[in-house]
């Protein structure tokens, strides 16, 4: 049982880390704003992935609610930040025309 928990946590947590690294690489390498924004959101998704994996406590136990609350808050923050960055990008595009 505990082995299964550990395995699932490693699997989901590990893929979270891979997502973070992919996002970071893309954020640093690509110049266009949209690609940077998608990259930073990918990093966020990776972190949330890890938090969800941390919350898992086995099939018979209810998951830890704290990381879930963190993920929900994190999503709200990520949406707001993306919206503001898009508004800036739109403004710059309009200036170009």
């Amino acid at each position: 049982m505990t082995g299964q928990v550990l395995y699932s946590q490693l699997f989901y947590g590990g893929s979270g880390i891979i997502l973070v690294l992919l996002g970071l690489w893309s954020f640093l390498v690509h110049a266009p704003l949209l690609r940077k924004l998608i990259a930073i959101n990918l990093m966020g998704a990776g972190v949330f992935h890890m938090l969800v994996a941390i919350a898992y406590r086995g099939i018979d136990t209810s998951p830890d609610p704290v990381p879930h609350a963190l993920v929900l808050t994190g999503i709200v923050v990520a949406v707001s930040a993306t919206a503001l960055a898009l508004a800036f990008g739109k403004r710059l595009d309009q200036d170009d025309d």
Partner: protein
Amino acid sequence: MMIDALPLSVTLPLIGAFAVTVSPGHARGPGLLAALLTAASALSVTAAVWSDGVLRADLGGWGVPLGIALEADGLSAAFLAMANVVALAISVYAGGYFKQESARHFWPLWLLLWSALNGLFLATDLFNLYVTLELLGLSAAALGALTGTREAVAANLRYLLVGLLGSMSYLLGVALVYAAYGVLDIGLVAEAIEPGPIAWTAMALMIGGLILKAALFPMHFWLPPAHANAPAPVSAALSALVVKAAFYLALRLWLDVFAPVLNEAAANLLGTLGAAAVVWGSWRALRAERLKLLAAYSTVAQMGYLFIAFPLLVATPPGLARDNLLAAVVLLALTHGLAKAGLFLAAGMVQKTAGHDRIDDLGGAAQALPAATFAIGLAGVALIGLPPSGTFLAKWMMLEQAMILGLWWWLVVMMIGTLLAAAYIFRVLSRAFNREPTPYRFVNDARTELPALLLGLIATFGLGIAAQPLWVLLEQGAFG
């Protein structure tokens, strides 16, 4: 009553932001009222910590680990007082600075930023700190782009993206801490943490994210364009308060959370980056052609001094010497906050009068505004570290401790930075003395010139001659 002042410091600006969003046509009145009430409640928190010790409020009666708690100890109370004095001065100044249309956009964002700032100083939980950090970054980037010029929007888009990367790194650290220890409250994490790869990685991620936001060399590249292109009151808030908040959090984590896992290598790395920031920032400030760019590069340099404190803190054993060193660092941060805000506010007046801020062509405008020029001079005294400013006292104590520890190279860096600071300040002031006739009015626009002047006076005289209360304040939970 004093317990209530804790949540009020965060909620009052939030309510104010809501009020000015509902009636944007009359933003100034309610905005100033909210500013006054917020500053009053925050200062009463500091007064209560000073007289009664650490304050704590569990919101809604929910305790740790489930609820959201606010806590003010000596360290947070000291930063809270400085930030709210500066923010009140900026609000009064902004009341006279912004015209109808920009006032409509300024006040809601400004009060949101203030709320996030007070929340950051008072939060006790690593995740709530992340939320306040993000709110601070978002409102700061939006405020910085208020002028709507292409340069301002591009600079603040970059600032926003860098800030997001920093917060993401911090959040990853928080996730690691929670995975390893199952708690987020600063006090509980400090009890549970033990040296090991997880703690080191979490520390690197969290402090790394914060130094990105604190613009420590070489991650300072976003700061000068973002701060120099913002409207003057916003530049003052960004340079004096927002980067200082990231430093406060780094210091808080360093002292309270990661104390058991600290090592000299990490401290020396931070100190070396700080030293590079001092030299590079001061040099660029000296070579800057525009007054606000000079002030922005000066911020890069001044943030450097604060990070030089980390290797000194690690090398000093606990006791009176370490307490004094910590107080000196806090004093340096507070003085810089007041002085830099005064400098930016005064520079904004000069820029408004002259229509530009090219240092070489400033003469007439600076001389026509004696109060603003005097404020620049006072802020300059504090930035250079001449007596009797708080910076003088703080630098003196840091230099003394570096000598005692035999770490003379930090001393050399601080001397070079001080000399360069003197050069760039006098370069500005020298432009104020070449025109005739001498104007006969000292103050021309009280609402905008007096806040700058007052900030300069507090930085130079208040924190230098009357710095002792800071030691009393920091005894509440920060020393030891």
